[in-house]
């Protein structure tokens, strides 16, 4: 084949520009840390990239939701604990009051302490997280216990029995509130009855019947608490599952689209030396023609 100068220089130029474009591609990969920057680089990686991102995004959102679940369940549990202590104290006081050695004055003193406990529990029933009453079902902006009205009006509204659920994993919803308004009302009525009985000067044996009522309410509270405890466990399990999911999702995304730096840098070095070689060879072949040798 007849080869001319213009062919050689044309080829050299073309090869140099090919080298530069490969070098550019590698530099872009190293700079961005990604194997692909546009879908046509690798459609499969690009498509998978979108869904892996979404998946990771989901997991991160669920982790955030879990935080809120912890917040609610822990607050509920803590409130129940305080109500439990109050009932415990009420129990002790009632045992003391039903003792026949107690004088009327003693009983009146006990009664006033019991009324303090009643108010304490009423306050606890109105526990808030941020601006939200946690025991109001879905009526989170209305207090369950209203001064002067008590629980009664709210009892008739079914919204106060409604659950609040959040999603903690794809399709898995978890109830984060509990709806103890009926129990609160019973406890309140119990305190009212005790107060009436003590004020009307009933005998110790009659008062001792209230100890059983307190115990009953204690049991109800314990059942509620057990439920919360079980849910706390579930959230913890979900939390650790989400944490490992997050690692898996991140890893999968990274394996899909991130470059292998060692490989990319080695390739780049190779490409650079090829370019260098092409340049030096180019300088050699372009130079001499027959013109240089005839005079």
């Amino acid at each position, binding site marked *: 084949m007849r080869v*001319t*100068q213009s062919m050689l220089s044309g080829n050299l130029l073309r090869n140099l520009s090919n080298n530069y474009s490969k070098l550019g591609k590698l530099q872009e990969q190293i700079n961005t840390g990604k194997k692909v920057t546009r879908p046509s680089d690798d459609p499969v990686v690009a498509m998978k990239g979108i869904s892996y991102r*979404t998946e990771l995004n989901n997991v991160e959102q669920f982790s955030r939701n879990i935080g809120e679940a912890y917040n609610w369940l822990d607050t509920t549990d803590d409130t129940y604990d305080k109500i439990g202590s109050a009932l415990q104290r009420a129990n002790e006081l009632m045992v003391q009051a039903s003792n026949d050695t107690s004088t009327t004055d003693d009983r009146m003193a006990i009664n006033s302490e019991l009324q303090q406990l009643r108010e304490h529990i009423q306050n606890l029933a109105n526990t808030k997280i941020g601006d939200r009453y946690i025991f109001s079902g879905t009526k989170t902006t209305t207090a369950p216990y209203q001064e002067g009205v008590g629980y009664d009006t709210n009892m008739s509204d079914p*919204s106060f029995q409604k659950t609040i659920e959040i999603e903690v994993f794809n399709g898995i919803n978890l109830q984060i509130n509990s709806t103890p308004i009926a129990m609160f009302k019973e406890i309140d009525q119990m305190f009212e009855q005790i107060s009436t009985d003590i004020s009307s000067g009933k005998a110790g044996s009659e008062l001792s019947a209230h100890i059983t009522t307190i115990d009953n309410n204690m049991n109800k509270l314990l059942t509620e608490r057990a439920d919360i405890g079980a849910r706390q466990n579930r959230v913890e399990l979900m939390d650790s599952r989400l944490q490992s999911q997050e690692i898996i999702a991140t890893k999968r995304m990274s394996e899909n689209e991130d470059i292998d730096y060692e490989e990319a840098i080695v390739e780049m070095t190779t490409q650079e030396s090829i370019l260098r070689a092409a340049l030096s060879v180019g300088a050699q072949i372009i130079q001499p023609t027959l013109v240089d040798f005839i005079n």
Partner: protein
Amino acid sequence: MRSTFMGLEASKRGLFAQQSALYTTGHNISNANTEGYTRQRVNMTPTLGYPGIGLDSPKTAGFIGTGVEVTAVQRIRDDFTDKQYRQETNKLGYWQAKSDTITQMEDILNEPSDYGLAQTLDQFWNSLQDLNVNPEDGGARAVVIQRGIAVADSFNYMYNSLSKVKENTAKEIGVLLKDANSILEQIASLNGQIQAIEPNGYMPNDLYDARDSLLDQLSTYYPIETTKVPSGGNALAIAEGATTVSLKLNDGTTVKLVDGNEYVQLRNSGESATDGQTPAGMVTGLHIVKVNSNGTETFLSNDWSSTRKTVNDINNFSTLGKFKGLVDSYGYSTDGSGDANTEKGQLPDMINKLNLMAQSFATEFNKLHKDGTDLTGTSGEVFFVQNGTTDETGITAGNIYVAQNLIDDPNLIAASDSDPNPGNPEPGNGKQALKLANMKFSGLSELEDISVQTYFEGLIGQLGVDGQQAERLAYNAQTLQQAVEERRDSVSSVSLDEEMTNMITFQQAYNANARMITVIDETLDKIINGMGRVGL
């Protein structure tokens, strides 16, 4: 008897011929780097021997040579490689145009990234999850609105940018047709000049080169077919004649564009701008017109035999050349009718799919939103509307937006699933927000039961595959074109080494001829001055 001075004449012819060759070598060297230049060679033939043959010819021993003559200066070029080169150029033009458009589309869609539509949608779904957790929180509500606006903005941006690219592609098609039409005019004018020169027995090599360059350029635009029409008169047998140029269609029909020094212009048959070349609607086909000297246009049939307008359906164009590449990106009518629902093309398809996606996303979202109740316990209203209205029908990617009343009052977001009758507000109820958030996974009937997210992934995947194919085929065509170009250069391009060698050859031959003349001079000197002087 031979003539006394015959030798002088023969050598003089030698001098002239070698001088012509030397000048041609100089011409080659001068044009060593000229684009499209073909090296030239001086064809030398011996002149007829002496004596001439005839009844009264003298009887001499032998048939003596009388020297050399230059019959033609010919360019060295191979028609076959030209044909091959133009075929590959066709392919390259098509795939490069396609690949360019897809690159622009990829830039607009901007996936995979942390800023594209997929990410905006993800953030929107997240904000709804947050709303489910904190339904009474004004902040969470405002975030949902803002993320909703971001989704709408992403749709709007893609729609507007793709429309802009489409508009620019139309302009590019117009410019391409104008350029191609101007090339046709130039070829016709070159044909005219060639037809004027060839009958005189000359070879207008440099005009041939100019014409071939134009044909190369034209073949990047659309597939052409060329035939040669020899000039009459005293034209040399190796003269190339005028070139007839035709546009070649898929079914084998040809549209004559240049014939001798006559030419026609291609016009866009569909809806077009006033120049008749820039498409204003989808492309339906092309027809030819003859532009008269006063600027009026007459229709012509494909073979110029009648003045009937003949529209060549765009579907009859092969997938070759930049013109078809641009049309395939810009959009054409699949049956040539120009009906809106027959439009097809890389850009309109993408825009239509985005429209469908926006429409079905908005419809489904609105439906769920209307099922819910807002902070005051009343039923939800439409969330996504046509920008500036309260209308949810006819939403496209270009006009989707969040309803103004929701932007003004985020409390109207229907996050709750409480019973709207009798309208008991449940501020802590975020169940509808969760349903809205989970719409991300639900298949939509308009999208063939796949979710918005998956549909979009599919779009990106398809675009990626198309882009990859276009890029690969453009690369292949380029490689092949380079191989052919190499072969062509191998035949036609100037080699300085060769020219230098030729220079030496011709110079020496010139010198030798001059020496020959000196020798003859000396022999004549002998006869004239040295003879008949016996005894002097």
